[in-house]
């Protein structure tokens, strides 16, 4: 997640400014007011500085790469309007003060959540993070099953991959209102679980490690599937979910959670 600051000066040659300043020193003696001289030199416009705090990340595939399961129109709207809207909203809020500067997006989400009493920036920051995570949780030619360690962990924690799939789908369909469904690695319990959250909430907030997510806000599927949530969830599980990304995330998670540690009961 980049943090970039760029000052866009509408007058590209900054040498103009320097020259103006120099000129003014000369002209002071001729008693032409500095301000007037500046205005004559730079025109009637004030110099505007535009700062961008966070950049919008593109999904790791073309917008039509997920057809026919998720249409280009949906990607254009979902990424181009909703996700971008959250990001631009966040940048606008951050322009007001520098209290929240210098965080990565993940840190910003946790900080603005403020342990349950969220700041106004929380909704935007959390949704930006959630959508970045969501795009990366999908790929063209996705679906099927994971392999190697992730499959083993799923079979250990859910009994079988089919059982996990059923649980995930059930969570998605029983979610009331807008929200997300996650496959998450619980840090303390050291196991994988399916979790559903409302609105912008994510498992980051209780320090767990998300592995896969599914957006169940209506805007994620309405253009393609209208009210048929079941179809959307099936298509996601069978054709879109990126187990490659899940395995990467699982591998990274194991630097933080020691899954090989034997569960010795405490006396």
């Amino acid at each position, binding site marked *: 997640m980049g943090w970039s600051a760029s000052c866009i000066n509408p007058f590209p040659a900054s040498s103009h400014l320097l020259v103006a300043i120099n000129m003014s020193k000369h002209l002071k003696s001729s008693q032409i007011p500095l301000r007037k001289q500046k205005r004559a030199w730079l025109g009637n416009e004030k110099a505007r500085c535009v700062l961008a705090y966070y950049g919008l990340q593109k999904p790791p595939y073309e917008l039509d790469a997920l057809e026919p399961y998720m249409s280009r129109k949906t990607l254009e709207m979902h990424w181009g*309007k909703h996700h971008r809207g959250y990001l631009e909203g966040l940048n606008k809020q951050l322009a007001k003060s520098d209290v929240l500067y210098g965080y990565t997006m993940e840190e910003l989400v946790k900080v603005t959540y403020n342990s349950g009493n969220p700041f106004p920036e929380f*909704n935007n920051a959390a949704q930006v993070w959630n959508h970045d995570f969501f795009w990366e949780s999908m790929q063209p030619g996705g679906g099927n099953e994971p392999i190697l360690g992730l499959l083993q962990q799923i079979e250990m924690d859910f009994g079988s991959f089919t059982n996990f799939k059923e649980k995930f789908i059930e969570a998605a369909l029983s979610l009331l*209102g807008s929200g997300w469904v996650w496959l998450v690695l619980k840090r303390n319990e050291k196991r994988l679980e399916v979790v559903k959250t409302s609105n*912008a909430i994510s498992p980051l907030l209780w320090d767990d490690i998300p592995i896969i997510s599914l957006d169940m*806000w209506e*805007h994620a599927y309405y253009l393609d599937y*209208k*009210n048929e949530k079941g179809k959307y969830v099936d298509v996601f599980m069978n054709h879109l979910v990126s187990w490659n990304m899940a395995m990467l995330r699982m591998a990274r998670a194991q630097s933080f959670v020691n899954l090989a540690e034997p569960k010795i009961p405490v006396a």
Partner: protein
Amino acid sequence: HKGNIICITEKSTVTFTRKEDSKMALRTLATRKKLKEGLGLGFQSIRGLQTFSLPDLPYDYGALEPAISGEIMQLHHQKHHQTYITNYNKALEQLEASMAKGDAPTVVKLQSAITFNGGGHVNHSVFWKNLAPVREGGGEPPKGSLGFAIDTNFGSLEALIQKMNAEGAAVQGSGWVWLGVDKELKKLVIETTANQDPLVTKGSLVPLLGIDVWEHAYYLQYKNVRPDYLKNIWKVMNWKYASEVYEKECP
């Protein structure tokens, strides 16, 4: 519209001039019959379980164009509202069964399904009455006591609309924005509720007007631009209904 419809029942022959009335009457007859049978057969409960069915819209699906498209109205009514009703009936049956058994944990667990689906039914039933085609008075500003109350409470109708639109646009996720009247204080209030929570959950309030800001209510037409939907829905707002309800609460 399509001529008279004649219904012949056990007791009498009744003529309906509107298809909607005949449909609704038949449906009421059907549920009443079920109730009688239920009571007669097994005395399974002290009172029969009242189930719910989809109320008809008092106008065609396309009658609210261009403010709300016919496609949205049809999906909203036939799919979304119907699903809430189906799931509400299911939850009520499960509730009745678990209450009869004294199964407290199940009773408590069903509450969220009842609030969500029952709320969805209650809210949408009000919503259909809140809207009217332009040629039937949709969009006509309120007169009488409600108009006066709006001017007193908010300054002007425009101010009320602006405030409701701002609150509606600010709802995060899914929910509703309401113009309600406080039964005790007899004051007009603007409130928002999350998901399908009905207005009664916010106090002793009676809904006069509600605007559905779930994405399914506007997405196909307005995409992500919820403010445009909020601006346009006032063109088909049924102030007559709101005035009736207000005059009943504040005579």
